[in-house]
């Protein structure tokens, strides 16, 4: 029952968020701020994780292929497919749900308990729109770029492993990376990323916006925001994949 209530409240909040826009000049400033903090702020972690994941996928695949029947280029092919289809989209989204999600929930939750949201309302500002729209828009715009960056770094990580560990030749790796490449898989990845970006900003925003109480409740909201958005990402991943790929 609680779940149904949460879902209902979430959609009511989203309705309010997108119904009465705030003055464009105010929102624009917020969006550029969020683009910076959500985008640049996540570059570091995404770069490190993607490089190591690309490297490990390459090692794992290479070391698990014993049969001479399986060509060497399989390693590069697997690295590319894993990065583009799942890692740079879903796994990165899960990581950002932890980083960005807890951040958003606690920021908005703190504003709620210190009456800053009331102060906005008193000034005739649609607080939901003013606080949430810039975060959602910024993430939906910037996350696809982060995903592309993650793919590039991941595959580069795999290439470096090929270069230095010798589990597979770089020529074979590159051949695999280029093999049977379909542009559609990039579109699929970017659509997923945009949907996930919406999830990891709007759900924690909902939990933060509805905090009642004090610092303790803000912490609880932050945790709930991260857990719920992670679960919703996994469900959405399944649904989108079913719809687009099958």
């Amino acid at each position: 029952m609680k779940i149904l209530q949460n879902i209902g409240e979430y959609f009511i909040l989203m309705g309010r968020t997108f119904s009465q826009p705030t003055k464009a000049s105010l929102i624009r400033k917020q969006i550029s701020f969020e683009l910076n903090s959500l985008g640049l702020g996540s570059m570091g972690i995404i770069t490190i994780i993607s490089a190591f994941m690309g490297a490990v996928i390459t090692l794992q695949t290479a070391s698990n292929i014993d049969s001479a029947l399986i060509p060497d280029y399989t390693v590069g092919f697997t690295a590319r497919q894993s990065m583009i289809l799942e890692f740079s989209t879903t796994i990165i989204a899960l990581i950002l749900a932890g980083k960005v999600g807890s951040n958003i929930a606690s920021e908005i939750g703190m504003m709620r308990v210190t009456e800053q949201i009331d102060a906005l309302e008193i000034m005739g500002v649609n607080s939901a729109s003013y606080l949430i729209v810039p975060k959602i828009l910024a993430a939906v715009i910037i996350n696809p770029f982060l995903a592309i960056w993650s793919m590039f770094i991941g595959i580069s990580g795999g290439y470096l492993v090929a270069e230095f560990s010798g589990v597979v030749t770089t020529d074979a790796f590159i051949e695999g990376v280029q093999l049977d490449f379909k542009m559609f898989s990039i579109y699929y990845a970017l659509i997923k990323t945009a949907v996930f970006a919406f999830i990891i900003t709007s759900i924690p925003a909902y939990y933060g916006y509805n905090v009642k109480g004090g610092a303790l409740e803000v912490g609880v909201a932050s945790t709930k925001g991260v857990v719920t958005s992670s679960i919703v990402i996994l469900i959405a991943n399944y649904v989108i994949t079913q719809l687009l790929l099958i």
Partner: protein
Amino acid sequence: MIELKNISKSFNGKQILHGIDVVYEKGKTNLIIGASGSGKSVLTKCTVGLIEPDEGQVLYNGKNFTAMKLDDRKEVRKKIGMLFQGGALFDSLSVEENIKFPLRMHASMTEKEMQDRVNFCLGRVNMSGINDRFPAEISGGMQKRVGIARAISLGPSYLFCDEPNSGLDPGTSILIDNLIKELTEEFQITTVVVTHDMNSVMEIGDHVIFIHKGHKHWEGTKDTILKTTNKELSDLVFASDLMKKVRKLS
């Protein structure tokens, strides 16, 4: 003028406000006093619509605010300035941007005009020169004063202050009281001040209501309060030795 008619409010089955009727006159400082937890902040939030009352109506200049649609409420709210109990400054904005915020929202001013207005408001609360600091970098009392500067930046018709002088030294406290009174009279504002400070009551209490356990238990002025025979009100007002002496003298 603001009229409250029969305002009641419960939270989770516990009744906090019991049918409160009161009229706040224009050009007067209306004070709400009462013990901690008696419902003063809830009453104030019901008045501005941050909390919906379960029963009753709030009228702004005769117009039923409670029944208004969101858009109409917004129009009224543009004329409301409010200082929250905790200051409620926006953490992510500097002092200057906090005060500019309502101007950016509702006024069509140039940057220069806004700048002048900010400096003027900061001057009025004796806080000139802290424009570039952030709320986390100034003391609680300073935050309160910036909160007042923000509340008056648009030149409100209605001013609500929830404990404007808690956390202030006596000198600053009097300064703020005088500021509120001056603005109220000069611009014919309808002002509502929640306070615990008996000094403020004596200084600026044109009209005082006493909330006791969610009921309006007493109503009067700074002059009649000293002669009150109301038991609960006496307990609150004359809790300190100083006030007991004041009563003897009067």
